[in-house]
């Protein structure tokens, strides 16, 4: 029954409708109605996605739905078309599923907002879901880019949701602009592709890349350039070095937003894009290496920073950056499936963690500094348990979901080179350490907040806890779709599922024994780390950071560096142009002409002395000169 695919356009359309309804009616609709509409549309498209997912399973070739020509100039045709295949359908599930939960969560979390702002919030969320769906469903790079910029816009709007706060707006601008830098690279990549292929449809591009279309061809440089440019685009969206600094600041937005956009979905767009164009990437080893190294570096850097952060959301933000780094490492080592797998699991547990932190903040009436928390485990059981699950999942302890995906990544890293593996493992350990630091500081020990904070402490309402529970369950079982071959033959269902899109490279080169050793090693070390964290932070008293700790607390001063080197110098230069070049040089020249004319007039005037004698003298002299020239120069 194809009809699910025929109406696939409904999936993005419903959220769009939700956006319009909530956006226009935000003044008139009641909060409850807004919540129903907002979450309802997403739920609907979630249902659609499941339906689509069912159908996609068996397909070998992607289904492309062509609606109209977005741009048609000469032989360049850019259709407005959707493409549904295994990869995109998987992402559809994640986006709409997690999205729906977070909508539900928001209904209660944002309930204190004024009504019209409440409506604004939900319309933004729906708009985001719409753009994200556009991004993953686009059948060519341009449609993908439209979604790409769309999600950027929504993140901008949602980060600056509390627009009275200038700091938040600055953070929003920062996010948008940094994304734009990446987007430019993305655009140039698109143009490059057009100049070589003539259009941007995934199928045609990959066909050309595979050399199935003989007339047009990519040279090696083309591939490298295009893939690199695309990757730069990805670094912007997925917060990799050097464009990662916006993500921590993006925590200015409401917590559900951080959960949905800056943890579960948007930031994984980069991974999606690269996985989508895996054909191209596989053809350029240079890019692959770069991707791997950048990913690993980011993972490590972010993890180190996360060690010393005290804002509960900042910690999670850096852990997100770090996890994204892991995913890029996977991509770089050619383990696209592992990357996508980790995207999924990460979506579950990171969303869980963020929502948990949200619940905590909610309970602490806005307090975000973990140094002022502690001992909440007694007050809010569900939150604590789910949060704990999340931490275990991210730390990667079997059989929680994080373990499987991370293990796959580590394995592929090991295959590439043991060094990579070593660093990756180290990072993983750091992850475990800082996550449990967070956990212990928040939930164990004594309460360190103010009295009336203590008085207000309470478990969050159902609308918040239910999504937590659901996500917790998912974080536990989510890993079983990708059980390594060593445990169970054909356990890697996700790999099998994605096979039509991502060609599985042949079986692993490492022997099973080594694989077991690696797993054991990582697991034991992680547990050791957790225990270490327990002893260190069980009962915490604040101390002034110094030395490396201070550097870490200040995020290696990267923000300051950027500010000095780029922002400030640009401002200086702009000011220089404005006040010197524009005023004095260019305009000075223009006005100079006028001044010169005026001056000439003033001087020439003096020739008109009023004396008859001098007049005649001048006349006679000019006559003499002309005669002289005429008769002596002519000869």
């Amino acid at each position: 029954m194809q009809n699910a695919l025929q109406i696939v356009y409904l999936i993005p359309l419903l959220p769009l409708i939700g956006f319009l309804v909530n956006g226009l009616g935000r003044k008139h609709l009641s909060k409850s109605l807004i919540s129903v509409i907002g979450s309802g549309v997403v739920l609907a498209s979630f249902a659609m996605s499941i339906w689509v997912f069912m159908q996609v399973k068996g397909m070998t070739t992607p289904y492309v739905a062509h609606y109209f020509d977005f741009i048609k100039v000469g032989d360049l045709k850019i259709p407005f078309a959707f493409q549904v295949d295994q990869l995109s359908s998987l992402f559809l599930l994640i986006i709409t599923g997690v999205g729906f939960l977070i909508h539900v969560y928001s209904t209660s979390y944002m309930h204190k907002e004024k009504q019209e702002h409440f409506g604004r919030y939900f319309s933004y969320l729906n708009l985001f879901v719409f753009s994200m769906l556009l991004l993953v469903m686009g059948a060519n790079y341009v449609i993908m880019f439209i979604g790409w910029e769309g999600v950027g816009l929504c993140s901008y709007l949602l980060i600056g949701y509390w627009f009275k706060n200038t700091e938040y707006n600055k953070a929003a601008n920062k996010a948008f602009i940094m994304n734009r830098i990446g987007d430019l690279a993305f655009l140039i990549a698109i143009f490059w592709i057009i100049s070589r292929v003539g259009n941007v449809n995934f199928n045609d591009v990959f066909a050309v890349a595979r050399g199935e279309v003989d007339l047009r061809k990519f040279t090696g440089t083309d591939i490298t350039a295009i893939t690199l440019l695309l990757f730069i685009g990805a670094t912007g969206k997925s917060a990799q070095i050097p464009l990662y600094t916006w993500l921590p600041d993006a925590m200015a937005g409401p917590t559900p937003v951080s959960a949905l956009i800056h943890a579960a979905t948007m930031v994984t767009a980069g991974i999606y894009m690269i996985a989508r164009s895996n054909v191209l990437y596989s053809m350029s080893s240079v890019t692959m290496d770069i991707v791997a190294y950048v990913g690993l570096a980011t993972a490590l850097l972010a993890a180190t920073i996360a060690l010393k952060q005290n804002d509960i959301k900042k910690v999670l933000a850096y852990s997100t950056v770090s996890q994204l780094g892991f995913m890029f490492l996977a991509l770089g080592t050619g383990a696209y499936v592992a990357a996508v797998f980790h995207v999924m699991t990460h979506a579950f547990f990171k969303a869980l963690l963020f929502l948990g932190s949200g619940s905590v903040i909610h309970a602490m009436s806005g307090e975000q500094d973990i140094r002022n928390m502690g001992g909440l485990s007694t007050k809010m059981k569900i939150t604590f348990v789910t949060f704990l699950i999340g931490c275990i999942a991210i730390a990667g302890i079997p059989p929680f979901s994080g373990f499987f995906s991370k293990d796959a990544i580590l394995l592929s890293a090991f295959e590439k080179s043991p060094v990579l593996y070593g660093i990756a493992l180290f990072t993983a350990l750091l992850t475990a350490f800082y996550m449990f630091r967070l956990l212990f500081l928040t939930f164990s020990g004594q309460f360190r907040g103010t009295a009336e904070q203590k008085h207000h402490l309470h478990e969050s309402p159902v609308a918040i806890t239910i999504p937590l529970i659901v996500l917790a369950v998912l974080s536990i079982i989510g890993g079983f779709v990708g059980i390594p071959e060593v445990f169970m033959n054909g356990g890697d269902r996700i790999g099998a599922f994605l096979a039509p899109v991502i060609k599985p490279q042949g079986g692993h080169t490492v022997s099973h024994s080594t694989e077991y050793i690696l797993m054991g090693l990582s697991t034991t070390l992680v547990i050791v780390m957790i225990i270490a964290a327990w002893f260190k932070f069980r009962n915490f008293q604040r101390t002034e950071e110094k030395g490396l700790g201070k550097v870490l607390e200040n995020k290696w001063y990267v923000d300051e560096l950027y500010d000095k080197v780029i922002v400030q110098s640009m401002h200086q230069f702009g000011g220089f142009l404005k006040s010197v070049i524009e005023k004095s040089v260019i305009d000075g020249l223009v006005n100079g002409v006028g001044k010169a004319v005026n001056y000439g007039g003033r001087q020439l005037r003096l020739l008109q002395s009023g004396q008859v004698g001098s007049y005649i003298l001048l006349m006679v002299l000019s006559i003499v000169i002309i005669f002289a020239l005429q008769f002596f120069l002519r000869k």
Partner: protein
Amino acid sequence: MNITQILFWFLSVVAIFSALMVITSKNPVYSVLWLIVTFFSISGHYILLNAQFLAIVNIIVYAGAIMVLFLFVIMLMNLNNETEPQKHRWLKMAGAVAGGCLLLVMVAALKDTDIKNQQAMVNEGNIGLIKNLGKELFTTYVVPFEISSILFLSAMVGAVVIGKKE
């Protein structure tokens, strides 16, 4: 060196000398007188060229009427040498130099024209006689002649407009 040439040279020297005196003499009255001398010598040239009519008219109109008019005016304003202050020396020099240059360039320009070996017919050729001129004037040149009357008319009107006391 026949008599004509002697006369020519004599008259030329007189003309130039008196002309120089016109522009150098301090007293305006002297200038006028010297100018009259110049006119007479030019009339001499006319006679030499056998243009009697012009010679006579020159003496009557110019030396007679016009210069007398000048003389009257000068007397009327009783200008004499101290009434005319001197120009700045350098301006004078500049003027003299400019005029000299003009003379030079024109002489240089005209010294070797292709008509330089042509002759001006002297003391014969009767076109200069009143009879011929009159005939021409009242046949061929009657229109310009009448037009010149308009000129006089306008000059007269002008003189009245300017001169009349209000």
